[in-house]
């Protein structure tokens, strides 16, 4: 259904920015090189054929034992053309950051905060990258596969955080 979007991406970004495309279970997806993340996003939003004005979802996946370890996954939808596409960008563990897409879609604010909170992927250029579901004192990123499910963390006030004693 959204093959036209993938065709547009491949035709426009010829410098290797689109690493791989495919379709599975009716979902079209493209793997984007990390440094082209924001450029591809802006293109998809502004191109009249794609017209992906609505960001539906942004999350991350921990593909343990793969390099790069994390994928940031973005789902986009076009309310006029009624098609959607999924974008991946690989993020390595030792350099765990990617460009924020907030300049393109301001509504990704909370979604990026959540991906940072749960996976530890930092979004460069996000104006307010705080934890959103976990509390500020929390240590670690709970959805990483190496974070034990049973691990408990007592709530300890630490200095330098809002609400904590000096």
């Amino acid at each position, binding site marked *: 259904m959204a093959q036209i979007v993938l065709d547009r991406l491949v035709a426009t970004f010829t410098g290797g920015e689109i690493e791989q495309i495919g379709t599975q*279970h009716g979902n079209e997806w493209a793997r984007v090189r990390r440094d082209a993340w924001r450029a591809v996003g802006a293109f998809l939003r502004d191109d009249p054929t794609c017209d992906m004005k609505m*960001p539906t*979802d942004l999350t991350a996946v*921990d593909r343990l034992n793969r390099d790069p370890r994390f994928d940031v996954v973005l789902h986009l939808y076009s309310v006029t053309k009624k098609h959607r596409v*999924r974008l991946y960008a690989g993020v390595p563990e030792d350099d765990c950051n990617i460009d924020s897409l907030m300049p393109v879609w301001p509504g990704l604010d*909370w979604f990026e905060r959540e991906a940072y909170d*749960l996976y530890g992927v930092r979004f460069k250029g996000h104006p307010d990258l705080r934890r*959103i579901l976990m509390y500020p004192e929390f240590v670690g990123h709970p959805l990483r596969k190496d974070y034990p499910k049973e691990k408990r963390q007592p709530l300890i006030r630490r200095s330098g955080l809002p609400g904590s004693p000096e």
Partner: protein
Amino acid sequence: MASTLTPTPPKAPAAPAVRRMVLGVQEPEDMDLPTDPIPLNMGPSHPAMHGTVRMVVDVEGEKITNADIQIGYLHRCFEKESEYATYTQIFPYTDRLNYVSPMLNNVGYALAVEKLMGIADKLPERVSYIRVIVGEVSRITDHMTCLGAGAMELGAFTVFLYLLKAREWLYELLEEISGARLTHSYVRIGGVSGDLPDGWGAKLLDVIKRTREVIVECGRLLNRNRIFRDRMDGIGIITKEDAIAWGVTGPVGRSTGLDYDVRKDHPYLVYDRFDFDVPIGSVGDNFDRYMCRLEEIEQSMRIVEQALAKIPAGPTMIDDPRVRLPSKTETYNSIEAMIAHFKVIMDGIHVPPGEVYSFTEGGNGELGFYIVSDGTGRPWKCRVRPPCFANVSVLPKVLPGLFIADIVPTFGMINMIGGECDR
């Protein structure tokens, strides 16, 4: 010290202008006394807060200049727990996402797994019809809870009681088919857990008839009620452009004029066989959101009536040995069936490796499930895209310029469900 009394240059907050027009009181901006902004804390435990959420608002007098919404108090590690549960064991967790419309979550999740297994279009017809019926009943209860609670917060306690009375009739029927009033876990991968009892359809039709009367009555109590209208009209306006850029869907998105309903635009199950309308608002204020929900209740009742008239007989579970449990007679009398039963329960349903994003129309908007499978009986990742997470995230943009009292109806009509937003 005349300089300190010099009025601040008038700003142009959009929403209160409409409000003043509604009240018929034109307050000149330059009469306002200069004030210092102070931070005001609402919640996390506050009578007017749906669920547990904290708002830190900066107020200048009564006017909000900045709002910080802090969620996460109801975080129950849905995704983390799901990675350690079999595909069937996740159903009880989905019940607790949007806990006023659990059936819709059940259906959305089941469809995602079925797509991943390639059986979504092989479901027996009766299963699809049952899922539509229970899903729409759940949508009615969802909207009634939102309207009732929203009205109660504005002082209309009668409406709240009337709507909750009707909601209980519907809950009783859902309890009859699933055994639980709220946490149904009724849907299964490949079907539903049991057929509708005899005479259930007739009871539902009767309840719908009575519910319709309640809805009309509540509409009469509120639609032209001066107190209600004054606090809803022109308050908390979300523009269509903002709704699109923030991913706002569902009744909140449609109230802005955004014509997007998954049931119409990307029909799943058998929604393309029913005749129903999608109410669209024009202003995007609280009253539009209220009217969209009120009208959607009626449309859901129409769908249920048509589905009950057309529902075919047949099995309620797909005949696929990968997902269905062998019958009890077989299980107790043959070793093969017993092993198969054991494997499905203990190892879980094996889903081929792959990834899928499946989306349905939940109570609050597009409810998406993004599942990554590695071929075992437990998902590698089970992400839920909660509609009200996106809907609430637009609030920091909507609230500035409103008054403190406007938070209550605005937040009520956004209908944040903590279980879904915080997962």
